[in-house]
């Protein structure tokens, strides 16, 4: 039986927009709005969706790097939603995040050995010698030569910097890793190297990934399960092949059909969505997708569709699925 490592229930993260003379809250960006999902030990759940749909905010809130506005976060069966930073400290080392930008996320004035070692220092793990040893081992694990430890980030290529990011995230032996677009900024021929590295490390170290990405080909290759976000909500979740082969939500269908495929002889039926993603400050009433949905009906404006389980492990939120 798969064990649940982490679960979020009706997670909400709203960012207040201040305005007026007194700086009162005049509106909110509903970046994450009643999102629920779980991730089993050792698996990869991918979170896909367009920019601004709330993927990064979901990842950060799940790790309590942002305090949730509502909902619950359960880690290994324990409710951690309202733990104080002090109470979180022992848990922190089990959860790491790796950022999108291999340039901005590393301190340019620190040698890479120190960058990788920093989490060990923060959590006071091991003796000085043990920490140095851990860094050297980790550098080797991710395919960096340990003798480069004295060099600075700017002396490395994008792919190597991403490896530094992986080493830093893994050096304290975490259980859960949030990978926020870890390969988007890399050259095409380097992307496959990093994908392979992430997969190999996952198997070797029994890691659990929340993988945030917009390249759906990579998502198909990496994930066990996939959740699709649109404007702060998860609209569909399913096992990898199930989602790609039988998408049920109109947004998922459009998203998958929009992906260009690298084969000139494949001509795919394409659903071209009209218009842009609306603002998360004032999302449309009812179903958030209705302003672009080719199947929108009167009820879609009035009622928010509920998440229902359509097949075992396959959930979606759309009125078409309950209409019958």
């Amino acid at each position, binding site marked *: 039986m798969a064990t649940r490592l982490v679960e979020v229930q009706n997670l909400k993260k709203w960012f207040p927009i201040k305005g007026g003379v007194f700086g009162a809250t005049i509106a909110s960006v509903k970046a994450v709005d009643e999102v629920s999902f779980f991730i089993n030990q050792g698996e990869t759940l991918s979170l896909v969706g367009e920019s601004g749909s709330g993927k990064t905010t979901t990842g950060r809130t799940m790790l309590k790097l942002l305090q949730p506005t509502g909902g619950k976060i359960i880690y290994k069966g324990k409710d951690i939603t309202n733990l104080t930073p002090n109470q979180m400290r022992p848990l922190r080392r089990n959860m790491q995040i790796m950022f999108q930008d291999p340039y901005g996320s590393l301190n340019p004035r620190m040698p890479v050995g120190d960058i990788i070692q920093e989490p060990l220092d923060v959590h006071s793990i091991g003796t000085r010698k043990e920490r140095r040893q851990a860094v050297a081992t980790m550098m080797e694990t991710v395919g960096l030569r340990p003798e480069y430890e004295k060099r600075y980030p700017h002396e490395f290529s994008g792919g190597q910097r991403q490896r530094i990011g992986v080493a830093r995230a893994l050096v304290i032996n975490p259980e859960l890793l949030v990978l926020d677009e870890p390969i988007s900024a890399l050259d095409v*021929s380097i992307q496959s190297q990093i994908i*392979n590295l992430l997969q190999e490390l996952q198997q070797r170290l029994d890691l659990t990934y929340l993988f945030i990405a*917009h390249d759906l080909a990579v998502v198909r290759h990496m*994930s066990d399960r996939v959740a699709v976000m649109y404007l702060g909500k998860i609209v569909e979740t399913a096992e990898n092949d199930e989602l790609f082969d039988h998408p049920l939500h109109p947004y998922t269908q459009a*998203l998958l059909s929009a992906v*260009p*495929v690298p084969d000139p002889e494949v001509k795919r039926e394409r659903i071209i969505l009209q218009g842009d993603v609306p603002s998360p400050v004032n999302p449309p009433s009812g179903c958030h997708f209705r302003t672009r949905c080719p199947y929108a009906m009167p009820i879609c404006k009035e009622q928010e569709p509920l998440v229902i389980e359509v097949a075992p492990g396959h959930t979606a939120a759309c009125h078409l699925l309950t209409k019958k």
Partner: protein
Amino acid sequence: MDNREVLVDIKNLRTFFYTEDGVVPAVDGIDLSIHRGEVVGLVGESGCGKSVTALSIMRLIPNPPGKIIGGEIFFHGKDLLKKNEEEMRMIRGDKISMIFQEPMTSLNPVYTVGDQISEAITLHQKIDDVEAKRRTVEMLHLVGIPEPERRYSQYPHEMSGGMRQRVMIAMALSSNPELLISDEATTALDVTIQAQILDLMRGLQKKLGMAILIITHNLAVVAEMAETIAIAYAGKIVENASAKEIFKSPRHPYTYGLLASIPKFTEKKTNEPLPAIEGMVPSPYHMPKGCRFNPRCPFATEKCREEEPEILELTPGHLVRCFHPIES
């Protein structure tokens, strides 16, 4: 073969940058031809010289530090590199237009998008302001911008990324160009918006018949859009053939490796590692001797480390720069 008239013929183009840290051979042997009405894809990784090629065609290379040091760019049989600035101004934005990588830097933030397109129109055509405005609204409508009259008086920052890209396309097409160069025009966009823009470009190309040079690092985008594909690596074209040929029987080890390494959206999940290309793109300041791909090439021999291969036509219309091309 292709019996359409050759519109653009680039022969052994070389554009270098002379920087404080040394000489960057950004483009060092680009050969490329584009027929009338043809859609050609130029593909390669960051820094391989795609944008510099486009800017060379437009004669917009910043000098200093850049300089076109060799080669020819024939447009209708006349070498653009021999034209003076005045003559180029007449061609640029008229017979040849370009959509740039960052729409925000190529739209002026202090003018409304309508005024910017109108100005581009009146620069090349003798028409009055009223007519220019009418044509602008028509162009905005053509590229699928809703309520074009209202959008006319909006500023670039009031629009979304996809909308700005449409404005760029409207501006580029307002002169009815014979060649449209699109430099990563959809790269920064979300997939559903990218699909809208590609669909739009495809439709307009059919309707207006211009040739398009699509520059991208995304193999899937060219697979969908281009008839002919040129693969660039470290400043050189390494393979050039029809899209079908490139994807079905790539002959250059780099093309072959690149195609093998990208995960396939249509294939079921496996736990197999991807066949990755080892190593990384060479630094422009330290180009390897011999074939520029040799440090990463599984088929490299002594000869590859010493001599530079020429680009050769292996089968009709299929050009490859390699001493040991992969069997088809």
